[in-house]
């Protein structure tokens, strides 16, 4: 029984995860190294990868700052009633339940060129939908719960005793945060950052709807993969997909490393 189960487990992993991952690696080499280099260094691929990189950087920064703060307020904030806290706590997860396409649609519906808000911003020369800000917004929406959900349990676990001790000893709010709270929640934040990077790197549905997927303008790496496949340009799609896959695997490895380090400490 034991042997059969282990063998079955290996089978599932190999068929569902390892072979496909391997296939991406070999698929990109189909036309040799030149083909791969060409696929990645096409102007549209370079632009798409840069676009993705920018989105990842901006989204990760914003999501980290606001996520950590919101988590602190939701766990520690005494200024809002417990009812309100419960309600806010329950809507944090909403983006998980929303299909990315719908997430994108929401932003188009509220900020699109035909709406009042969108028209206003457009008139002052600030394009949101079908431009970079909209894509950042869509990705922020999708990644929102990741940081909050990683940091909240850590904050709950560590309690307030050490912070109170620091305050009693005369440390001000900011000092307490950097010297006491931050070291305690550090790993939670790191996990949150890794998850946010992975998700914003791979976000597809929401960005596709919001960006309009204009080549060399609002195209990200994932939407370029999609377009290449639609154009039956599978080798090029593989090249870009390989770059994305390598990043994801690296993130996964980093996550494992961080987990192990946390276990040691």
């Amino acid at each position, binding site marked *: 029984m034991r042997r059969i189960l282990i063998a079955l487990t290996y089978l599932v*992993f190999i068929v569902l995860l390892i072979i496909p991952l391997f296939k991406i690696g070999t698929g990109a080499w189909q036309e040799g190294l030149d083909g791969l280099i060409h696929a990645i260094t096409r102007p549209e691929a370079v632009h798409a990868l840069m676009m993705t990189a920018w989105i990842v950087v901006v989204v990760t920064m914003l999501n980290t700052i606001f996520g950590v703060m919101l988590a602190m307020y939701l766990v520690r904030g005494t200024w809002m009633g417990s009812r309100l806290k419960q309600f806010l706590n329950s809507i944090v997860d909403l983006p998980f339940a929303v299909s990315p396409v719908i997430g994108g649609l929401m932003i188009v519906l*509220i900020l699109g060129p035909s709406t009042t808000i969108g028209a206003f911003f457009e008139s002052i020369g600030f394009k949101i939908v079908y431009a970079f800000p909209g894509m950042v917004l869509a990705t922020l929406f999708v990644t929102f719960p990741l940081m909050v959900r990683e940091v909240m349990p850590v904050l709950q676990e560590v309690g307030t005793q050490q912070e109170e001790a620091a305050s009693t000893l005369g440390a001000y*709010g900011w000092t307490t945060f950097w010297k006491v709270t931050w070291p305690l929640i550090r790993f939670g934040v790191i996990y949150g950052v890794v998850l946010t990077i992975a998700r914003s790197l*791979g976000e597809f549905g929401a960005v596709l709807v919001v960006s309009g997927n204009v080549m060399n303008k609002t195209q990200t790496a994932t939407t370029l993969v999609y377009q290449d496949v639609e154009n039956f340009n599978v080798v090029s799609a593989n090249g870009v997909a390989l770059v994305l896959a390598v990043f994801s695997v690296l993130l996964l490895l980093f996550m494992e490393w961080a987990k192990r380090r946390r276990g040691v400490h």
Partner: protein
Amino acid sequence: MNGILRHKGWSWGFRSTVMLYFIVLIALPIIGVYTKSFSLGWSAFADSVSDPLAWKSILLTLKLSLIATAINILIGTMIAWVLNRYKFIGRTFLNSLVDLPFALPTAVGGLMILLLLGPNSWVGNLAAQLGLQIVFHEPAIVIAMVFVTFPFVIRAIQPLLEELDKSEEEAAYLLGASKFHVFRRVILPSILPGVLSGAMLAFSRALAEFGAVVLVAGNIPGKTLIASVYIFGEVESDNPQGAAAVSILLLSLSFLILWLVNWVQMRRHAK
């Protein structure tokens, strides 16, 4: 610096900014979709939803998500069990690999399935000779959904298996219970909340999945067009009201599931 930061206005400002960000980013868009779908009145909403293609896409999504979830419950429970209970070569490696579908962009996942099972691949050719059609048909959609939701059930069961008191099992064995009996009567009841909440998360993710599916489904209206791809099509053809109408059906369903998951977890903590 500290003097400035201690000022009351700062903390008030921080709070308002964070709350505003939260409301504007999360609550406002969701309200926007609900209002948009009724923006042209009830009859327009009813028309959009009762469009046969819309209906078919929603039913197809539900059916395939259910199949994918059932598959995930089976293999997920098995894998969680094997990874937690048995020591074998490569266990830690497999355990880290579980999260791969979360880390990998879904479009890349779809592309991998397309490459493996597509018309020019080895498996695709074999299946074609046997008269089976995988890619651009329902099986490919189910495979994509299973791939994307793979970690949910496993990650929901693992902590429960770790918590499980071994002495209960041993007592059952001592009392002469068979292996199957112990699994059904002792282990299953304690991991069931995990199986349920993992399955519901997987189901709601499968309902919402777009990236992996759009590449492998072929998206033939009425046949392999799932709801999220239908919504995307409506947006592309400049019919935001119709897109919003189908969206709120899916959304309401997902919210219900999310609420159920929370409820199950709350009940567990209450015990």
